[in-house]
C-alpha cells in the first residue's frame, strides 16, 4: 500500500473542516445552552485540550512512523488485548460515523425534505461516502483541500452580510458574564469533539514530513477555533443565548437572516449545502478509518471491497441508533461525551505501556553492557 501521500498543508486544511463541521452545525445550540456567553471560552479550552491529546498521539505514532497502528499495536500490548481494542475502535468509528450521519439526516429531512424518509437520505449519503472511502485517504484529503476554499468563502460571505443585523451592544456580555459551572459542563461536552484528533493515529503513516504534524494540528486547531468562535459570537450577538439555545439549528436561522438588498434572501440552502460537504468529509474520514481497521485486522491487501457493505451497515446504524430526536439528543448529551473520553484515552494506555517497555529494554541493554 502506498503511503506518504498527504501533505501537511492538506492535513491542516482537513482538520479545520473536521472540527468546524459538526460543532457549528449540530452542537452550537447545546453548547450555548450550557455555557451561555462562555461558549467561546469553552471552544478555546477544548482546542487546547485537543492539541495536548494530539501531542501524545503524535508521540506514540512517531515511534513507528511508517507502520499501521493496527499492526504494531500488538507489539505493545499482548495480542489478546490489542485485537479486542481494535475491534472496539472499528465498531466505535463506524458508530460515530453513523451518529453524525443520523444527525445530518434529521437535519436535512426536517429542514429541506419533509416527508422524505431518513433512509433515503442516508442511502444517498452513504453511497457517496462509500465511493469516497474506496478512493482512499489521498483523495479524501485532496477533496478537503479543494472544499476548504469554498467553505471559507461561504463563511466570510456569511460573516460580512450578517454583520449589519448583529446587536453589537451585546459584546460587553462576553466580558462580564461568566459562570464556572457553565464553563465546566460546556468544556466537558466539547473537549471530546476536539479530542477526535485521535484519528491521527490511524492516518499517520500516510503523512509526509511527519515531524511537522503537531505544528499543523496546532494551526488547524487555532483556525478552526477562530472560525467556530466567530460563528458562535455571531449567533450570540444576533439571537442572544436564550433564543439560540431554543433553536434546533441556530446556524440555519442565522443564515436565513442574511438579506442582501432585499433581493437575495434565503441563501440558507446554498450555504447549508456548502456546509454539508464538510459533514460529508467528517463522516467519510471516520468511515474510512473503520473500514481500514477491519481490512488490517484481516490482513487484507486493500480495504476497497469492504466499503459498500460497511456503508450499508453505517446507514443501518444511523437509523437504528435512535427512534426519534428525543432519544438521540438524550443519548448525545448523557452518554456520548463519556464514551468519547474513554475512546480517546486508549492511546495513552498504549503510550504508557510502550514507554515502560522501552525503558525496560534500555535498562536490560544497559545491564548487559555493564556485565
Amino acid at each position, binding site marked *: 500500500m502506498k503511503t506518504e501521500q498527504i501533505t501537511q498543508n492538506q492535513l491542516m486544511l482537513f482538520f479545520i473542516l473536521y472540527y468546524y463541521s459538526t460543532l457549528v452545525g449540530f452542537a452550537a445550540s447545546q453548547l450555548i445552552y450550557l455555557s451561555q456567553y462562555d461558549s467561546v471560552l469553552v471552544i478555546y479550552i477544548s482546542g487546547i485540550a485537543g492539541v495536548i491529546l494530539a501531542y501524545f498521539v503524535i508521540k506514540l505514532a512517531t515511534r513507528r512512523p511508517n507502520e499501521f497502528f493496527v499492526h504494531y499495536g500488538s507489539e505493545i500490548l499482548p495480542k489478546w488485548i490489542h485485537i479486542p481494542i481494535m475491534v472496539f475502535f472499528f465498531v466505535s468509528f463506524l458508530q460515530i460515523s453513523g451518529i453524525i450521519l443520523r444527525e445530518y439526516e434529521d437535519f436535512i429531512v426536517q429542514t429541506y425534505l419533509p416527508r422524505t424518509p431518513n433512509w433515503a437520505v442516508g442511502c444517498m449519503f452513504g453511497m457517496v461516502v462509500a465511493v469516497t472511502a474506496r478512493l482512499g485517504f489521498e483523495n479524501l484529503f485532496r477533496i478537503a483541500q479543494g472544499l476548504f476554499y469554498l467553505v471559507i468563502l461561504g463563511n466570510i460571505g456569511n460573516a460580512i452580510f450578517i454583520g449589519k443585523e448583529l446587536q453589537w451592544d451585546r459584546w460587553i456580555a462576553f466580558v462580564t458574564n461568566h459562570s464556572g459551572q457553565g464553563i465546566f459542563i460546556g468544556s466537558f461536552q466539547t473537549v471530546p469533539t476536539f479530542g477526535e484528533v485521535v484519528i491521527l493515529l490511524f492516518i499517520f503513516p500516510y503523512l509526509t514530513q511527519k515531524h511537522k504534524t503537531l505544528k499543523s494540528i496546532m494551526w488547524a486547531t487555532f483556525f478552526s477555533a477562530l472560525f467556530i468562535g466567530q460563528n458562535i459570537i455571531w449567533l450570540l450577538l444576533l439571537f442572544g443565548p436564550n433564543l439560540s439555545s431554543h433553536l434546533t439549528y441556530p446556524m440555519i436561522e442565522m443564515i436565513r437572516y442574511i438579506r442582501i438588498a432585499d433581493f437575495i434572501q434565503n441563501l440558507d440552502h446554498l450555504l447549508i449545502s456548502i456546509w454539508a460537504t464538510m459533514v460529508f468529509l467528517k463522516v467519510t474520514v471516520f468511515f474510512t478509518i473503520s473500514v481500514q481497521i477491519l481490512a488490517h485486522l484481516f490482513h487484507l491487501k486493500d480495504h476497497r471491497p469492504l466499503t459498500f457493505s460497511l456503508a450499508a*451497515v453505517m446507514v443501518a446504524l444511523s437509523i437504528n441508533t435512535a427512534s426519534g430526536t428525543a432519544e438521540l439528543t438524550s443519548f448525545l448529551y448523557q*452518554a456520548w461525551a*463519556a464514551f468519547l473520553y474513554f475512546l480517546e484515552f486508549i492511546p495513552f494506555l498504549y503510550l504508557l505501556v510502550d514507554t515502560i517497555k522501552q525503558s525496560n529494554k534500555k535498562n536490560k541493554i544497559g545491564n548487559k553492557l555493564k556485565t
Partner: protein
Amino acid sequence: MILIIIGFLIIFGYEWTYLKSKKRKKRTYWIVFGIIGASFIYCLSTVLFEHMPSPSDMIQFLFEPIQQKILG
C-alpha cells in the same frame, strides 16, 4: 426490504467482479463475502425488528452512569 436485497445483490456482484479483476486469493473472497453477508443480516434485522438494540444502547448503558457521576 426488497430494496435491501437488491442493493446487496448489486454490492455482491460488484465486489465479485472487482476481486476477480484483481485476481485475489481465495481467502480474500471468503473474508469479503463473509463481511457482506454479516452486514446484510444486520441491515435486514434492523428493518425486521424495529426495536433491535443498537451499539448506542450499549454505550448509553455503560457510560451514562459515569457521566452522571462526573457532572454530579
